[in-house]
Structure formats: C-alpha cells, structure tokens
C-alpha cells in the first residue's frame, strides 16, 4: 500500500497512469502472467483511462520484451478507433449525401488511418488532397448502388472500397463494429438511418471483446469483481469520497409540512447544507449508508487477491478538524494503528512513514514463465461479395392480381401441378397446397380447376388420371453414370405402357424426339411391352401421339 504525494502541477490520476506499466513489468519479472493480474477501479472511465494508458505505453515501447494487453468490458470503446469513426462517417454520407460534417470527418479519419498529413487542403470545405480524389470519385459513383444494399453488405462494401480490411489495423475494433451491425439487424428493421440512430443512443457504448482465456490484464470495477479472485490485485484509485455530496444524488424523504395532512414525500438533492435543515435526520442516515457503502467497497477490493495486493492512494495531510473525507484519509489513519488486545496485525510496524509505504509479506516464488504469445490463428479478412458465389433464384411474374391467367405462366403452373399428380385427387390436393402457400388466389384456383376439367374431357387425357393404370410421375429413369431423365408421366396399363410429356408454348420438333428417347429408355427397362408416346400441349388442349 503506497501513498502518493502530489503537488499542484501533477494530478494523481496522471501519476497513477505512469506508474502502472512499471508495476506490471515488475510483476511479470516475478513470474506472474498478465492474466494473473487484475486492476480494480471504482468507475468505468478509470478503466478506460488505464486501458488507453497501457495501449499508448505499449505503442511507445514496442520492443522492450513486455506485453501490456488488457481485457476489459468497460474500457475498449469501439468509437475510439479511427476505422469505426471512418465507417460511421461513411454511413452518414450514404444516409445523407448533403451532410458535409460527416464527409469531412470521413476524409480526416481516413487521413489519420493512412497517415496522410493534416493540412488546410484536407480540412477546408470543398477541397481534398490529391490522394483522395480518386476515392472520392468512386465513392460517389458507387453511392446509388450503396443506397440499395442491405445494411451488412453496405458496411462490407464500404470497408472494401476504403480498404479498411487490410493494412488499416484496428481489426478488433472493426470486428466489434461489424458485430454491432450484425446484432442490430438481428433485432430491428435493417435500415441505415435506424442503425445510425441506434448507434447514437446505445451502440456507441459497445466495447471490444476479447476471449476470457486470453493472457491479458483484467481491468474491472470493484463492483463487478465481487465473488471473483485473482493472483494479483492492483487497486490504483483508493481516493473516492466517503460521502460524495457533489453528485446529484436524490433521496425521497417524508416531510410533515402540515400537521393536519399526511406527510408529503419530497425529493431532495443530497447536499451538505441539509445537515442544518429540517432534513438532518435523512441526511445523516444517507451519510451513514454512504460510509457503509465505501467500507464495503474497500472490503471487496482488499479481499480479491490470492497472492499479491498492491494498493495506491493519494497522500494528503490530515486537515485541521481531523475530518476523514476520503478512503485515502481513512487508510492513512489506519496505517498508524498498533495491535490492540488480541488483534494480530500492528499496522504501524509495517508502515514506513518516510516512504509512506506499507509493506507486509514476502513474494511467492514463481518460475518465470514469460512466454511469447502463441502464433495467432490466421483469419481471412478479404471481402468477396456473396453474389459472386451464388445468386438468388429469380422469380418472374406479372404484378397483376390474377397474373397467371393472362400469360404463359398459366400453362407452366398447370404443368407443374400435373407432373406431380398421379390421380385427379392428387391434382386438387396439390392445387390446395399452392393456395395455402399464397402462390395462387382463390379465383386462380377455380380457373385452374376448370382448366383441368376441360382437359379431362379428352378421353385419352382422362385415362391418364382415372386410376386405370399404375402411374409413375416424379420417378425418373437413371442412366448409368449418375445422369437421369424425367418423363412427366409413365402409365403402366395391363397390356401396354404410355409415356407422356406435357408441354407449354409452341409446338417444336424437339419435343417429339425427346419423347421418342423416353420411349426407347422405357423399352430398355421393360422388354416386351408395347409402348406409346404422347405429347400433350396444355394451353391448346391438344394431344399428339408420337409412337
């Protein structure tokens, strides 16, 4: 436990931030690993500050043999990364091409990523450095395409166009941002302006995620560390107020303002002036609770460590009234305690008043296992639009309420149903499921039904569906080598076999030769049975006998 003296010029926070890398290096030298170390703080922004400090320290001391990776849910905000700022600005431009602030932000952040100098040419409205002119042109050329892309594809397309995947670094942040988009479209209407709104309200709080197993220093709030334990715990910010009246704390208190009426419940801002008011009881109670909270917090912080605990607090001399305002004051006083009665620990024996340091215990023996990170698993960061790998099947049709009737689609539809139906009953079943699927309307269903009835007026057509023969519909014929042919219909009557193919559209010579081929195949399989081949033109209700 060390108390740190500061003067007017230096701030305690800055001293701490300078001190921490040093402490960590010493711990690593003692044989601890990064993941053994937890830095517990009081507030989220302290976590963020520490994480930033470690990152910039690591950047400045690249080759000193140490790593300073940190792992924290509270610290590594996505918005800190230039790639994220750049992407957000680009999305802003797609959303509103007139947004000149977004556009400038985009170019400036991109200049930051590509280390292009900051100068007036870059910053001035309506001007850009040479390096960007080509990109600007292609960006605005792509804009109409961008505006029709689904959100996720849009983000990928921009990343690709601006080339943020490779070379830009900050991949953890980029991934985090993509994940945010991914989560957003999983839950919401996947539109751009909705996303940008959401980002402003909630998304900006998102942080980089690192696997728990990764060897890195944990930075956490004391609150969240409850119930957890670590080999080494650092408590750098033991400086909070025992009772902070500066925050806008509100308490709801009873107030007997008129004896004839039941007491009113009034909201009060907790301020020290309350002590001398009618609300002094409420104030004192609040004061007590806050002190208890502070003590609890200290208890939690001091009891997380398995082997090493390092605590730091700012030093200040006792004030005139000996009033204890911060936990640091409290700890300073404790250091002077001797052991009373059956207490085991005399603090003052271990406290060095000169150094202002409390030092108890000996170091655990650890074998130094400073090991290099295992080579990181390769990942692919290239973007290849999915449309290059596969296409969505196009559906054709007319946008008319009953689109099938007028056009060829009608024949195609009848064809599709007939080829699946072995009997008349099958036909109506098939028709019904198409109706339930929403593929056809009620009128269309009736039309198709009557069309089928019409076809059944033809005697030979009727015989294909009346159950007088055994029908094979979707059972095609395998050819050796895995190929297959699918005649629409093969009917086994008692003494003969009929092969039928249904056609839509104009009559063509190839139709007949196709049926002939089918007939030949069936002949190969069923030797000795007479076989007939038919082509049935659905729209004109004509049947042609081929064989």
């Amino acid at each position, binding site marked *: 436990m060390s108390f740190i003296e500061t003067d007017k010029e230096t701030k305690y926070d800055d001293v701490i931030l300078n001190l921490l890398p040093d402490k960590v290096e010493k711990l690593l030298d003692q044989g601890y690993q990064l993941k053994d170390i937890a830095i517990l703080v009081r507030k989220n922004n302290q976590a963020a500050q520490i994480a930033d400090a470690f990152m910039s320290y690591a950047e400045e001391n690249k080759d000193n043999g140490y790593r300073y990776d940190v792992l924290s849910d509270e610290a590594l905000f996505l918005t800190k990364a230039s790639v994220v700022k750049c992407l957000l600005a680009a999305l802003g431009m797609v959303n509103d091409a007139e947004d000149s602030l977004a556009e400038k932000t985009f170019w400036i952040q991109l200049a930051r990523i590509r280390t292009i100098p900051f100068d007036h040419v870059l*910053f001035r409205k309506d001007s850009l450095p040479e390096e960007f002119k080509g990109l600007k042109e292609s960006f605005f050329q792509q804009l109409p395409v961008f505006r029709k892309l689904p959100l996720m594809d849009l983000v990928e397309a921009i990343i690709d166009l601006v080339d943020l995947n490779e070379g830009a670094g900050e991949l953890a942040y980029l991934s985090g941002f993509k994940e945010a988009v991914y989560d957003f479209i999983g839950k919401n209407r996947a539109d751009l302006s909705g996303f940008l709104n959401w980002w402003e309200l909630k998304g900006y709080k998102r942080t980089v995620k690192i696997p728990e197993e990764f060897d890195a220093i944990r930075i956490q709030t004391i609150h969240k560390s409850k119930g957890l334990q670590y080999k080494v715990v650092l408590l750098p910010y033991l400086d909070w107020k025992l009772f902070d009246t500066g925050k806008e704390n509100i308490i709801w208190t009873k107030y007997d303002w008129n004896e004839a009426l039941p007491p009113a419940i009034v909201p009060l801002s907790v301020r020290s002036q309350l002590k001398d008011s009618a609300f002094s009881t409420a104030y004192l109670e609040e004061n007590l609770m806050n002190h208890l909270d502070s003590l609890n917090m200290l208890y939690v912080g001091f009891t997380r460590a398995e082997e090493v605990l390092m605590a730091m607090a700012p030093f200040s001399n006792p004030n005139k009234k000996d009033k204890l305002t911060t936990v640091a004051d409290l700890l300073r006083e404790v250091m002077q305690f001797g052991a009373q009665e059956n207490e085991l620990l005399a603090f003052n024996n271990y406290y060095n008043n000169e150094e202002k340091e409390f030092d108890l215990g000996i170091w655990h023996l650890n074998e130094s296992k400073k090991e290099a990170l295992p080579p990181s698993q390769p990942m692919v960061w290239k973007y290849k639009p999915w449309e290059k790998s596969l296409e969505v099947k196009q559906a054709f049709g007319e946008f008319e309420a009953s689109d099938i009737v007028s056009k060829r689609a009608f024949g195609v539809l009848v064809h599709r149903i007939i080829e699946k139906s072995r009997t008349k009953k099958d036909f109506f079943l098939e028709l019904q499921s198409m109706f339930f699927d929403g593929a056809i309307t009620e009128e269309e269903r009736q039309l198709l039904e009557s069309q089928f009835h019409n076809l059944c007026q033809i005697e030979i057509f009727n015989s294909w569906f009346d159950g007088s023969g055994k029908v094979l519909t979707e059972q095609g014929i395998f050819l050796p080598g895995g190929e297959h042919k699918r005649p629409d219909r093969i009917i086994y009557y008692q003494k003969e076999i009929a092969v039928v193919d249904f056609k839509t559209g104009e009559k063509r010579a190839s139709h007949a030769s196709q049926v002939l081929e089918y007939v030949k195949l069936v002949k190969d399989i069923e030797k000795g049975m007479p076989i007939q081949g038919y082509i049935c033109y659905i729209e004109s209700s004509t049947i042609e006998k081929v064989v």
Partner: protein
Amino acid sequence: MEGFLKRTAAELLQRGVDVKNIQVVLPNRRAGLFFTKYLGQLVSRPTYMPKVITIEDFFYDIIGKRPADKLSLIYELYKVYKTLTGNEEGFDRFYFWGEMILKDFNDLDQFLVNPEKLFVNLKEQKILESDWSFLSPDQIELIQAFWASFESRDRFHQEKFLRFWDVLFPLYQGFNSSLKTLGLAYGGSIYREVVETLDNVPPSEMKTVFVGFNAFTGAEEKLIKHFVKNFGAEIYWDIDQYYLNASSQEAGMFFRDYKKDKILGPTFPEITPNKIVEKERQVKTYAVPLKINQANMVGAILEAIPQKEENWEETVVILPDEQLLFPVLNLLPDNVNKVNVTMGYPVKHTPIFTFLEAVVDLQRYSKIVNEELMFYYKPVKELLSTVYLYDLAPEFSQHLIDEFSRNNTLYVSSKVLKEGGALFAQVFQPMTTATLMDDILGLIKMLADSLEENTMERTYLFQCFKQMNRLKVIVDKEIKEEVNIAFLLRIFKQVFGEIKLPFKGEPLQGLQLMGVLESRNLDFKRVIICNMNEGSFPPSNSMNSMIPFNLRKAFGMPIQEQNDAIYAYTFYRLLHEAQEVHLLYTTAGEQGKVNEKSRYIHQLQIEMNQDGVQKEDTITHIPVNLSPTRAIVIEKDKSIMDHLRRYTKPLYGEWEPLSFSPSALNVWLDCRLKFYLSYIAGIDVPEEVQEEVDPAIFGNLVHKSLENLYMGYIERKKRKVLQVSDIEELNDFVYPAVMKAIMEQYFLEGENPQLTGQLVIARDVLQKYLQGVLLKDRLSAPFEIISLEAGKKYRAFVPINSNGEELTIALGGIIDRVDRIGDTVRLIDYKSGQDKKTFKSVESMFDRDSSDRNKAAMQTFFYGLLYEANFPDNQYFLKPALFNLRDIFKEDFNPYLQENYGYRKYSEVKDYAAYREDYVSSLKSTLEEIFDQDQVFDQTNDLKKCDYCPYAEICSR
C-alpha cells in the same frame, strides 16, 4: 464418399428388386435428393427411380389432405372460441394466444394424447394452484395484510381464470369439427386421422422403406409400426455404438427405446457400426471472440484446404445461427468455386422491403389536425431519404428535409408530401384496415413498374406481392372488420419476415452450407460447425406451451429432454464419417454476457479418448491495436492568411469586412482548432429538428420574448422612456410576448394555437422569467431604452500589429439591451444558463489556460468597446450587466460584474472606461495571436471542452 445414404442405396440395389416399386420415406427433402443422387451413381443400366418422399408427405398422401395456412386456422379457432365463451375479445388480441393453443393442439395430436383427459387434468392442476383453501386462517390473514385486494381477486379473477381452462376441451372439439365441415386440416389433425383409420389404409403396392429416422412422434411411431408389421416395411437406422450402447449418451435415447420395442426392435441391424471409435479423426476447437469473427475463421479454415481439392461437396459448414450465412459467404476464399446453400435469402434484409415496412409503419405516426392528415417528421424524413423516393425527386425531397430543420417542423401535412409525384402520393396517404392491403399492393406495383425486368429487386417485390395477395384474400374474406391497423402491421411484419428466396444452383455440388437439422442423414468428410455455444447448439428451446412440464411428460408429449436428445444425435452422427472436424464457438455473447461453449465440445474433450481430439481450444486473438490519435495541427498557409484578411478593414474599401463577434473570440480562446474548423475551414454543422426545448432553444425564446415585450412597448407608445407605471402595465403584455416568440420559433400558426407537452412548461417558465425581469426593472425605473438586440448591430475597428504590418480588425456584435438610468448606460446580456459574474482580472478573461475564465465578462466588456465605437462622444458611465434569469427571483440579485481582486474582496464594475486600457490591450494581443502567421491552429488540452463540441468526431476525442 462413403456414407449412410450411399450404403443404404447400394443395399437396396443389391437386392435386385424392381426399384420402381419401392418407396423410400426420409425425414426431409434434402436427404431425398442425396439419396437419389447416390442411387443414380450406382446403377449400371437404365433403371427407374424409386419413389422418394418425406414423412410429412407420406402422411398427407395417405389421407389426401394438406394443412391449411396458420392465419386461416387461427381465425377458425377464434370463431369457435368466441361462440363458446361469448367473449367479445378482438381477433388481434386473440391471435397470439391462438398461436399457442394451435401449437398445443398440434402437439397433442401428433403424440396421440387424449385431449379430454389432458385438459381435465390441466384444469384440476390449475384449480389446485389457485386454491388457497389449504392455507390456515393465519396464513390468509398474513397474505391479506400484504395484499389488500386479495379478497376480490380471490372471487372474480380466479373464476374467470379457471373458466379459460374449462373451455379448452370444447374448443378442441369444436375447432376440429368446424375444420372438418370446411374441409380444412392442420398438421396434427392429419396425423391423428391417419393413425385412427389405420385399418382402412390399403396395403401398398409398393415396398416401403423408412430411412434415417431418430425420434418419432406418437403418430409416426404408430404408422411406421403398422407398416412394418402388416406390409413388411423396412427401417434403415443411421446409428453408432458410441451412443447407442452408452446410456449416458443422450444421443442414443430414442434408439435404445426403439430397440426394446417388439416390432421396431427386430428392424435394427445385427451389427451396429462403431465408426466413431474405430475411425480416427482430427477434431479442432476454436474460441473466437465475436460471432462475426467466426466468418473470418471459417474463411481461414477453407483457405487452408489444399488447392487441388475438387470435391467441395464433401465439406459442410453448419450454421446453427442462420444470420451468420452472409458474413460467411462474404469471406469465402477464392479457391471455393461452387457453393450450395440450403437456407434462403431473407427478403426482410433488403432495402426494398425495409422501405415497404417503413411505409406501413408510417401510419402509426400520423394524426389528423383540422381534418388534415399530418405525419410525424422523423419517419417522413427517413422515407424521403430512401433511394426509392429521394432519387425520384431529389430537389423536392431535399427541399422538404431542409425545411424540417429550418422550420423546426414536427408534423408535416400529407398534402405537401403528395406533391412529390405519384409514388409520393401512394406512400403518404391515409391507410385504414380496409384499404391498407390494396394500398400496399398498389405501391408494390408502382415500384415494380419503375424497375427493369430481371432485376433482383423485382424478384423481391414479386415475392412480397404474392404474399400480400394471399394475406389480402384471408383478410378480405374473413376478418376485415374485426382488426385494427396495428394488428395488420404486426401480421404484415410477421408474414413478410419469414419470406426467404431460394438460391440458384445445383444442390448436390460445391461447398455445402446448411442449418443443423438439414444435415440429418448426410455425411461429410470435413465438418465445420459454427456457434458451438450453449443456447445455439444445442439451442435452448423454451417450450412455448400452456401445458406444464409434468403433464407433458405424463402424457408423452415432447419435453426439453427429448429436444436435447435430438440435437445431440444430429451432432454425434456428423462424426460417423468425418475425418476433419472444426468446432467454433464465441466467447462474447450479447453485450456484457459471456457465452458458454457447447456441452458437446466438453463431452468430446473429456469422454472421447482419441489423439485427434484437441484438448485445449485454440484461442484466437485479434490484436487490439489502436492507431495513435495524431494531434491535429494546421499551419497558416497563404490561403488561410488571405481568408483572415477578410476580417480587416481594407485601405481602399476593396471588400466589405467580416467582423469578429465575441463568441468567435471565445471559441478562439477555447480551442484554436475549433475556431479554424468553424470560421476558416467552413465546416457546417448540420441542423436538426429540435423536438425538445433544449437550452439553446430556450435561450432563443428568452431573448425573443424580452425583445417582443420591450419592442412592443416602444412601438405602442412611440417613446423609449419607461416609468414605474409603464412597467406595471407591461405585465399584461408578458403572455403575448412569450406566445409570439414561441410561435415564431416553432412556426406555429393560428390565433391561439394549442401548445403541448414541454412547450406548455416552457411558456410558463418564460412568463415567470419575464415577470422577474419586470420586477427588477421596476426598481430601476425610470430608464430609457437605447437599443434592443435586433434593432442594432454594433461595429468597431481595432488596429493591431501583425507580422510587422498595421491591420485594422473589424469587430461586431449584438447587444441584447442597452438602456440608460441617470448617467449610467447599462449594456445588458440576458443569460438563461449559469454564468458567474465574478472575474479575477481583465487578463484572466483572455487566459485560455485558466479553468474559470469568465466568458460572459469578456463578452459584456466587449459591448463596452462596441458602444464607445458607436457613440464616440459618450459621457455616460458604461456598465456591463448580466441578467441571469435563473437567479432573478433571488433577493440579492445583482446583475453587475464583480472584480475579485483579493481573497473575498470584490468590487463592482461601474464603468467600462476604468478597464478600457487593459481590456483593449488584452483583446489586441488575442487578435494579434489570431493573425500571427506562426501561431498554428491546434487542439485544446482541456478535454472537458470537447464533450459538447460538434467536431469531436474529427479530433477523435
């Protein structure tokens, strides 16, 4: 490659029977496709295909029925429910209940549960739960004390609650008989009917073979047994000793039961394959930080596969979370040349669909004002910015969008919006339950007309069009009058959210991407599974049912245990033939939560004793490197110096000089870069519509109101001196002065418009403030008003020495109010925020490093300078004053500046002249700094100043 389906195909062929007369029943279509493919590869001469059918179709074909769509079914259910209960509950409220009831009916039919027994049991259990008769009087008293309304709840609600359970069985009966009359059916009812009429099923002329089943529903089991027992049907099981023989393996749960069965038992093969143990395979496990990173990882795994690999169909990527499909597809390495995806393309992610959805949604944000339809500006603005409207009429749309922020429009009339053209008219029209369907259909048609043939968008639209037609039929025919528009919106979203479009491609070729259940019966050499997390694989299926666990279990309906067994089986059977398995899981769940890795990985690592199984997961780490935020420093080049020149007075009047306002100087003192960005680089900050009365707007209103009040006086009385009596009179003009300001600010019209919400509060607070000002003014009366803000813009010129050159800098500003009391002229600034009136020294007002630099003091002294420049003969004292309105009711209110010249020592500023010399000299050095060629524009060191700076994103702060 070897596999279950291929083996089965070969076995069937070997028997030499006529394949034409075989029907093969499989769990799903995809398995059928692969089965046919393998069979085809094995034939040596032309041969018929067997009939290949899914189990569902097998049922449907026997009875000749197909299930009706959900919406119609729920509506039928609703009609029966209404006649049974006489309840007047609307259909929209019933819908989500109905969905659950239908699902339960379906379940209990599929599992052949006796509905009467089940529902009687259910009701009795509910009575038990809501019956408090077992409580002692003491206990009841305790509860009553705790819950005052205990008594009434006990009687009325409890009975109503129980009546609901009473109705379930009659509902089931009524529903089924009404469906029968209509010739409709749902899945479960078809299954039950088939099983109940088993004896009527004619012996099939085909031989039936059931292939690759794991868990049967009650109805399936009965039907299959019937076929095995009576028609000699056969079953091919896709199993392995690993889980079949170990009772601890949930994957084998169903098989173990079936093996004990009299009829099913004999269908199991004599020798069960033991491939999981016998075959060696590599199993690699990866911990990946984010869901999205799995795509990067899959890409890397695929890329590492040797280039000569041609048989991509032997590799499968299984995606328990369908949403991951596109991230994975977007990162496929180039060596993957063919892809086959079983999942469809979700139309809901396309911009054209989000546009339609936004159009429908817009209706929720409309209101009728004076018989005119108005839309809330936000959704309108978003619609106008879409490519579909904006690009049709860019100028029109941009103009409207600009107007919103310029006029602070909160609601915009549909009349105005319709002027954009036919499509605008279609979008911005009132839609009711009766017209919504046709309106949207019309809109789809119009959108389609503008598209070229064969575009994907047209295909998406066409899908929507078809679904909409179907929806319209049902709604028109049945439920038109009974639902409100909000319900239609919900149905619209639900129905359309599910539309998926199939991908082109040969299903049996290329890299296979599929969901978990689609992999059933298929075997692959290389298996890559993503989302190996608890909750994804196995999924955490919360059973959405009214029937509680104990009853489900007692009546043999599926419970979580069965679900788990099914997923465990789908996982383990993928190991049968796999030589290489890659399992990916993510460590970060939803924000803040940790994702747990799947139990299957733990099981493999602990239970499976094979060298190939990686015992410690590979942890992928993406380095968290942040590129350092480079400080921004802009040097003054010639063009910047030229730009600055425009703020100087030219020698011969070549240009009309711009002038520096006190706020520009304050910006310079706060942050030189901010000054640069806003005054030199000219980067505009976009305006936004202000719905709330934010501090800036409120400040505006304060100024306007006060100006209205006094300007009105001057105009009415044609004189500028105010007496005490005048002030009293002015009290009556407070209200109109405030209202006029509000109406101008928010572009309101009419004689006396109705204010709502925050504006009412703002109006009342403003009135209070104005009354406060009048109170103070009464004490100062009589006084003469010299100028009011809009009335006069003051200017001044200050000579400086810049880079060895004499320059004359133009300054200017508006003073809120200048008045004269006796021999003192007051230079008044109204403040609605919290501004201090104390300052340490004149220099401190210009000291950018001082944490309590008094900007307001700097500003009001500036007015002194301006006043003198405009009235060079001035003989009066010039007294700066800050009217902070928040403090105006304080007894010790004092608007004058106080110089703090020592500890607790203050002196009031009585005359600008006393400070003139110091002030002008500080001002000059500030201006000289601005014009100093070597003074760069750099960022402030005080990060607090960046909190509300609009350029913070540029600075990365």
